[in-house]
């Protein structure tokens, strides 16, 4: 059906956290393929293992079972080819200013000259609307501003595959729309691949080209569907996703009443 | 009421009379004879300077050690606490020993040599070395050898000397270390303090504060009597004294070695101070102390003033 080799192939991956006292299964036998140029969305309830999956793709966790390959090679360690935007607010280096945070990533990962890196950094910092704060240290920023810096950093890196974990969650409606548009514009330009975690179904449909629906904890694949740009279809799709994701809860609620 | 006394000694054969007093309960014996009750606490120090501090802070009544700490504190306290000697314990020679066959006399030392002694410039060995330099190398050259000296405790110095893995090739020690060192075939004596001073000189002394001595005249008599008895015992029964000492100090030396030490012909067990004046005069002359005297009796309480000291 699909002759093209997938960029990222996740096959029957089970991810577990082992602590001395507990063994927590975050995802159970999850499989999906991300192709070159996909805007692939992970959608699922809180705690279903979306961040865990991203971290595994990022190379920070080895699956207990199953296999993940990137361009046919097994993922064994993190690297700048998979740039991550984390969910946490403390992902900026506190000892660098906003501009330096972005530039440093470019210098470290892409061996760019300082001058070039700073120029590019300023460009992307401007894109997320933080030019005024380019020389501030992260502790002087609000939560949403920090996330925007992380987004700028991720985009500036122009990686093969960009992994974004709820990057827009801390943003207000307008900023969020701006960021979404920036992301799509960038995608139009460079057609990079993005693996995007979100909670908003509308955002998933808007941003994504393909959407993976996960079940509650531990995360299993419920469905993998295509997105749409047609407004009418989108509304239908939104309703459909909503029902698929929350079918279980609906029933439960009914039973409770 | 019991008189509480705190007495201190250090390591070494030089404190043998005190060891005997402690082990044989001589203080209690003489106190009982004088109708006194004495509670004695024996302390150990590793050096004279800590002992002096304990004495000054009122934590110690009778200190025992080498002559320079006593002379130093004497010179410092004549206007206030008036610390003075109580009695001498023994006169013993100090030997400068080297393992370097090239070195025959003082003038053979040069930059490549290192002489270990307890404390550069201030210990009795350092002072004796200066006096020796003045005597053998000539007037005004007393400090010439200072540059080759290194401060080091006796055990460490001996280990360094005999271990042969460091640049230490001479040690100005004291009994029993010098005697043990001489057993090594490479070792030979370069300087003998008796030669420098022109005869036997006191090595260990007991000293105290005027306040204590003046407040406890009876005890001082008891102490002197005990000291006299223990010295008499040493002279009469060196084997027995050696045995007691070995046991008390759990010394690794054999009985014969200890007896040899005690009965060494150079060693004199006596409460009479010998040749302290040359030391005082020398130390005052080079500025190590600010007081000088021409009468050895100034250095001591009247506990030994009847003797023929020097």
């Amino acid at each position, binding site marked *: 059906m*699909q002759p093209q080799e997938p960029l990222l192939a996740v096959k029957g991956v089970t991810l577990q956290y082992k602590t001395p006292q507990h063994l927590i299964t975050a995802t159970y036998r999850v499989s999906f393929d991300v192709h070159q140029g996909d805007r692939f969305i992970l959608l699922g309830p809180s705690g279903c293992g979306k961040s865990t999956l991203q971290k595994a793709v990022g190379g920070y966790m080895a699956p207990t079972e199953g296999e993940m390959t990137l361009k046919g090679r097994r993922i064994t360690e993190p690297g700048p080819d998979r740039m991550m935007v984390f969910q946490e607010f403390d992902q900026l280096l506190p000892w660098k200013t906003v501009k330096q945070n972005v530039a440093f990533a470019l210098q470290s990962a892409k061996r760019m000259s300082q001058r070039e890196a700073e120029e590019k950094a300023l460009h992307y910092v401007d894109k997320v609307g933080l030019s005024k704060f380019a020389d501030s240290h992260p502790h002087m920023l609000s939560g949403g501003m920090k996330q925007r810096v992380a987004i700028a950093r991720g985009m500036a890196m122009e990686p093969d595959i960009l992994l974004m974990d709820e990057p827009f969650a801390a943003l207000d409606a307008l900023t969020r729309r701006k960021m979404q548009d920036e992301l799509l514009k960038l995608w139009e330009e460079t057609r990079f691949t993005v693996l995007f975690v979100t909670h908003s179904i509308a955002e998933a449909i808007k941003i994504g080209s393909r959407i993976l629906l996960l079940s509650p904890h531990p995360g299993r694949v*419920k469905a993998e569907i295509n997105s749409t740009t047609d407004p009418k279809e989108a509304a239908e799709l939104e309703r459909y996703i909503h029902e698929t994701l929350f079918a279980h809860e609906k029933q439960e609620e009914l039973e409770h009443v | 009421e019991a008189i509480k006394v705190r007495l201190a000694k250090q390591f070494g054969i030089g404190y043998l009379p005190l060891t005997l007093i402690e082990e044989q309960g001589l203080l209690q014996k003489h106190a009982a004879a004088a109708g006194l009750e004495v509670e004695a606490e024996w302390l150990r120090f590793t050096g004279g300077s800590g002992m002096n501090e304990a004495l000054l*802070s009122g934590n110690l009544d009778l200190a025992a050690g080498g002559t320079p700490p006593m002379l130093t504190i004497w010179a410092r306290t004549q206007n206030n606490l008036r610390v003075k000697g109580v009695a001498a314990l023994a006169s013993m020679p100090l030997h400068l020993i080297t393992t370097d066959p090239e070195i025959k006399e003082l003038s053979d030392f040069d930059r490549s040599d290192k002489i270990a002694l307890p404390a550069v410039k201030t210990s009795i060995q350092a002072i004796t070395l200066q006096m020796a330099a003045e005597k053998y190398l000539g007037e005004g050259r007393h400090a010439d050898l200072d540059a080759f000296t290194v401060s080091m405790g006796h055990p460490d110095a001996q280990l360094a000397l005999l*271990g042969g893995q460091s640049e230490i090739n001479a040690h100005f020690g004291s009994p029993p270390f010098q005697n*043990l060192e001489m057993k090594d075939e490479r070792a030979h004596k370069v300087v003998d303090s008796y030669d420098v001073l022109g005869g036997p000189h006191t090595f260990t002394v007991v000293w105290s504060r005027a306040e204590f001595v003046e407040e406890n005249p009876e005890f001082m008599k008891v102490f002197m009597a005990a000291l006299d008895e223990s010295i008499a015992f040493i002279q009469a029964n060196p084997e027995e004294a050696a045995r007691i000492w070995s046991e008390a100090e759990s010394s*690794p030396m054999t009985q014969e070695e200890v007896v040899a030490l005690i009965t060494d012909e150079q060693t004199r067990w006596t409460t009479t101070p010998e040749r302290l004046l040359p030391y005082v005069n020398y130390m005052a002359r080079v500025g190590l102390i600010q007081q000088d005297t021409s009468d050895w009796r100034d250095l001591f309480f009247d506990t030994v003033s009847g003797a023929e000291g020097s």
Partner: protein
Amino acid sequence: MSEAVARIDFGHGATGRRPEIFNKDVELGGEMTVVEQKLSTFETLYREPALRKLLILVVLAGIWEIYGRTLNNDLLFPTFSATAGAFLTSVMNGTLPAAAWVSIKVLLTGYAIGIGLAAVLTALAIASRIGTDFLETMTSMFNPLPAIALLPLALIWFGLGNASLIFVLVHSVTWAIALNTHSGFLGVSKTLKMVGRNYGLKGVGFITKILIPAAFPSILTGLKIGWAFAWRTLIAAELVFGVSSGSGGLGWFIFENKNMLDIPMVFAGLLTVILIGLVVENLVFRTIERRTIQRWGVQH
């Protein structure tokens, strides 16, 4: 395992050609069996910290033995076996355990007081600016002072004996612990501090319930350093301070044997210090770490 059961093409976007996948039976769960990769025997063994540490100790002892033999200078550096022999002898005849016990008693007292004092100083430093300045000034002034500097004051205040030793120990323990604790407190996340204040916690309650657990890794490091320096100081101080007859600790044991040139015994005394250090690290500090830092996930 779940299985694709239906394929409906919803979207018509850029990648719309790809088939869609629907798994209906996911909610039912089913049994979740996980097939884990096995580890090799070597790896299983290597994963055991106790084994790794034992290995290190054995290697170190081996190096000691070999170096001691090639050096062949029993006066300066005895072999491991000679030291172990001396250690056994003096353990058997009870002198070493007695000396160690004397030292440990003094040490623990000094250590405990030092911790208490550090706690007070740090509490003051957290409570007010002048407290901070006081701690900083005192630490930068007194921490570099060696024990001998305290001797006169110790003698005046406490006389000879254990009280003075403890005083010196406190001096060697307090500053290191206070510095670490204070910097740990300052490093506690702003949010956590706000949470604590939000609960209405203040003063001692705030410190014990929020700051101390939050800064625990730092504090534990301070405690470890304090512990080590307490030992160093104790052994050195026993020499400076003198000993009343029969009551010497490990420092005295070492000094005495050195005076008698019984070098294997000296090393046996030092070996005791090493062994105590190992035991305390692996039994006490490790356990605390496992129960706190590791369980809380605050170190990675």
